[in-house]
């Protein structure tokens, strides 16, 4: 638990994954378009949960999102990734994951 907390904290401060404001804005628009959401992109809270409560996405959305993210950033989403829960935790964590794995 403490290790997990430490890793998350480290990820937020590490230079490679400090909040990517531009990418977050870009990703928010992509999410809204790909999933036909009513919420305006600028109203998606960077730290709010994407699934369940929060934005209320589900597994159908996850699949749609994987397609859109693959096309836009060349990043393949996986559920067997140990960090999966953290990757999908919020707009910020998803943007961080994409920033670390996108093809330059």
């Amino acid at each position, binding site marked *: 638990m403490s290790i997990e907390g430490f890793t998350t904290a480290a990820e937020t401060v590490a230079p490679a994954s400090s909040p990517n404001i531009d990418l977050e804005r870009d990703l928010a628009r992509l999410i809204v378009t790909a*999933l*036909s*959401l*009513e919420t305006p992109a600028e109203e998606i809270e960077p730290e709010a949960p994407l699934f*369940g*409560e929060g934005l*209320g996405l*589900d*597994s*159908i959305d*996850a*699949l*749609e999102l*994987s*397609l859109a993210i*693959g*096309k836009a950033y060349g990043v*393949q*989403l*996986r*559920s*067997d990734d140990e960090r999966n829960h953290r990757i999908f935790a919020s707009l910020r964590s998803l943007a961080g994951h994409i920033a670390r794995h996108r093809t330059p």
Partner: protein
Amino acid sequence: MPVEGPDLVLTTRDAAEIICHRAGGPVTIGQFLAEAAALAATLPEQGHAVNLCADRYAALLGFAAALLRGHPTLLGARSGSLDGFLEMAAAQYPGAYVMAGAEDERRPALPFIQVDAPRPGVPLPPLRPIPAERVVAIGFTSGSTGTPTAHAKPWGALVAAAAAAAARFGLRPQDGPPASIVATVPPQHMYGFETTMMLPLREAVAIHAGASFFPAEVHDALAAVPPRRLLVTTPLHLRVLLAEGRRPPPLAAVISATAPLAQEIALAVERDWGAPMLEIYGATEAGSVASRRTVREDGWLPYDGTRVRDGAAEVPGLGTVPLADAIEPLPDGRFRLLGRLADMVKLGGKRGSLADLNRVLAEVPGVEDGVFVVPEDIESNPAARLSAVVAAPGRTPAEILDGLRGRIDPVFLPRRLAVVAALPRDPLGKLPRQALATLLAPGEEA
């Protein structure tokens, strides 16, 4: 057709045959039975297993162990209101316990059995025939309002269904090399249960265990198993896999169920992947009852021993089971689906009643009038979602959504929700479709 015979043991497959391909290597029937017996020995005397295992091998192991112990397995929803499901299980099924893997989230509501914990071996007890009428699994339809309805599955019916599917899809020992199934549907969904639990137990099938949800995972899973490869999936996954554009390894067949498959998706699979695109028609209540090759056949051919007529199917071991679709029998013994009976809607493999959904909507605080709206493309767009138009003075769409959350299955939550002063009812109280569509059009603010 009665279901009986000495072959009603857990499995009639040889000990050396492969039942599962895992990351660590293939698992034989012999090894699987030994692990199932060891797990069964740790289970309580009496009980009901709530199988929540995400890993397909763990799910199969849990089901087999519960079977050996004489416990029915509750095939609970892995998504949706799981806590509500567990409360129901605790209240209605004596001795209910949760089976899950080390990776799965713990649920404090019920006793917990970790399926994949290491445990000492025990001598394999002789496999005795399991009575055909014994209920070994219970499927649940959540309905639209999340109150689960139970559908008992006697062992004989499941064995007969597996045999019928194997005959239909060439999965019997005499049909060729064993098939490898990669599935994108959870083992707790009736379609996933039949294809990734019953088929490997009973027929010449090995399942892939490991993640196979996202497109990249499906490709890796297919590459990791030997031919003959069978992809068991849904229209939703097929649409995404095709849009992504990578060609999978050679496939013996692709099977889809849970919703009608658009002709263009079937054509693309046959053309781009060079594989027969087969569709199964079924329901949680009846199980799989018919199939077709979508690009060639409009009519569905019932499984051997099953008869399908308007509104019901006669299923071996189950008897007469009502169906939620209008059916037109064809002269050649096939049948055509004429669409869902009015009021029924199906999304993400879940079926709900619009009347139920509208009733729950009306009960949300502040709602004076409201209606769910089904999109025009619900039958052709696998990602289609419901909308709602609500008269709720002073309330925001977010408040209405909060009121619905937890009371209906999440898949039915309206994606677009317009709050209006009054619903556009005509003098007869009816709601013209066009008027609702206008209210829901993008950019329209009430």
